[in-house]
């Protein structure tokens, strides 16, 4: 069965795609905040990353720390094949739902 993603899961996965090699926790948080144009709790992003990793949609590796992090490592994320598939299937499902409708919708629609 297809993995149809929620809006926040899509935002996190697409942030990882956009960030490429630089997709670690805080960078993903900032990217999601910019794209959604609102303040997002760090816990929401980390919980989503955790869930996506448990579902096999993303993988992660530990990188080196930096002084501003007091040496704590950064965890870098990348999409796994199942993650790409889930994003593609979600986009296809949304496009299918909208097909034949004008956008933006108005009350006369």
């Amino acid at each position: 069965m297809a993995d149809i993603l929620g809006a926040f899961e899509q935002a996190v996965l697409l942030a990882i795609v956009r960030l490429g090699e630089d997709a670690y926790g805080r960078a993903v948080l900032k990217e999601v905040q910019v794209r959604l144009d609102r303040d997002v709790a760090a816990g929401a992003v980390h919980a989503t990353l955790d869930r996506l990793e448990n579902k096999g949609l993303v993988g992660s590796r530990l990188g080196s720390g930096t002084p501003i992090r007091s040496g704590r490592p950064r965890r870098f994320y990348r999409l796994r094949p199942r993650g790409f598939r889930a994003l593609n299937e979600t986009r296809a499902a949304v496009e299918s739902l909208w097909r034949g409708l004008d956008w933006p919708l108005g009350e006369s629609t």
Partner: protein
Amino acid sequence: MTATPPEWAEALLRLVLDRDHADSVSGDLLEEYRATVHPARGQSRADRWYVMQTFGYVARSAGFWAAIFGGAFVARTSLDWLAPTDDFHVRSAVSTSIGVGTLMVAGLWAGWRSSRFAAGTLAGLATAGFGAVVSIVGAVALLAVAHDPGTMAAIRGSGGLAEVFTLPLMLLLPGAIVGTVAGVAGAAVRRVLSPGSPSPTINP
């Protein structure tokens, strides 16, 4: 001078994080605190931001268990009010078992995740605390819907309104105790099955 968030909040954060993710997640939060929040808002507001973020992690970690804990309490209250009985033994046994069982599983899970027994204490306390909010809000909603003379008589017969609103708060201490015991077990099992101690807080 390097900005540093409140130590107690940092310690609290580590209790609700998975042992293998604690350094990277707390590092992300520390980096955001130092690079963005502190320069823009100053020490006290940045500290407040850090504390609120930490409470968010705590709420996320305990929310599921608190919903079960509080939901069971609301279900029991509904049953006592809407289907009165003179024999509360079975109902008490079932609701107590669900409550204690939920606290134990929450404590076990928390101890396992962080590999620290104090995580169980926090999980028990948070589950009972957030569960108390669910219980009280649920009881108020139930009372708003059902307050006919028959229901009010059933409420008096089952311990009265005072018990409904104070009992959830009286469960905070037992919640912490049960959570601690379960947390010790969870942390011990994790350490035996997956050796490696939790990393200590890294000070700047």
